[in-house]
């Protein structure tokens, strides 16, 4: 997978080319806080496939630490604080790579890399026996 370091967040010609590919669902940015301008930790943002400009207003959260979960007026429609974007611009800590699978799958897939297993098969009691027993225990039960 193509990964590059950027001095600041800006989509390049290669990014637009990657976005235009049929199997590309968007661009993903991994960001590491420096502990000064932003709390230490990592989070992932996404530039959606239908991004129409270079504006940070198109960034969406994918994952984040709780310390990043700030809300305020200075955020875009996905809640990404503008201060965070400023931090990315100043610190040059954005890394961008194409996402080649549906974002919803990325969001919902368990991170344990194990296969889903079928539900357990538990013994099912006999309906009539249950009803008879309940009538004996509690005659008022219908």
């Amino acid at each position, binding site marked *: 997978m193509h990964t590059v370091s950027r001095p600041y967040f800006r989509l390049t010609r290669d990014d637009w080319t990657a976005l235009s590919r049929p199997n590309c669902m968007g661009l993903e940015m991994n960001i590491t806080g420096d502990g000064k301008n932003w709390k230490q930790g990592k989070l992932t943002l996404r530039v959606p496939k239908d991004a129409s400009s270079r504006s940070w207003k198109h960034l969406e959260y994918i994952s984040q630490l709780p310390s990043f*979960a700030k809300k305020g007026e200075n955020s875009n429609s996905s809640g990404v604080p503008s201060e965070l974007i400023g931090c990315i611009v100043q610190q040059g800590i954005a890394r961008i790579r194409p996402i080649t699978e549906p974002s919803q799958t990325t969001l919902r897939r368990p991170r344990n890399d194990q296969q889903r*297993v079928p*539900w357990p098969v538990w013994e*099912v*009691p006999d309906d009539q026996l249950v009803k008879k027993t*309940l009538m004996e225990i509690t005659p008022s039960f219908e």
Partner: protein
Amino acid sequence: MIDPRVVESIVRNNTLIQPFVESMREDGIRMDAYVWDNSPCLFPGIRRAVGGTDADLKKKVVPRHLRAEKQAIYIDDNSYAKQLWAFLLTNGNFANHGPIGYELAHLFHHKSDSDTDTSDEIDGLENREDPISGFFTAATSCAFIPKSLARVTDLNLSARRLIQRRVYELYQGACNPLPPGCSLKSDPADWHTSEFEWAPAVGYSESGTALNALLKFRFDELQRLVENSNANAA
């Protein structure tokens, strides 16, 4: 029922979702109906649809301007209550079917249009404005039971009070199953838990892999729903 060690882990992890809880509170949701100290609630802000009044919003994110009115960020059918079980027992999120021959039973009333009277089961709810919506996805408040017993756990007071006492015995060391100021009603005629044979608790594994996947899913879902509501209001 779910293993108490799983419940302990959920309670510890609840500190990570506190920013979402505060965000919901700021939007006018009375969160004490969902969470309290050492609460076992898994998805605060998500409640079951109430017949008649929630039809338009069922299985939808509640827009921010309606959150205070609806007292929720999402109106669910019954899916989120099953996520805990699906992750722990099938290693993935709930896929619209459960174990064959079993149904998910809610062991405590969690909505205003319940079939039986909550005051017959819990003391301390008299002055509360809201139903305890947190029971809907609480790790201690649901169990998969044989279908032949489903109506019993819905409607038979003796059976309900028996199972509620079992909940308290099993989980009181792991969490606070009930909100502060509330307690289970007791009566000399109550059935005793010691006179019944109980299935072993399920869902715990040493690796904790499935539980960690559930907690990650929980965090992502709450984040998505909270932010989606924000987007609706923008």
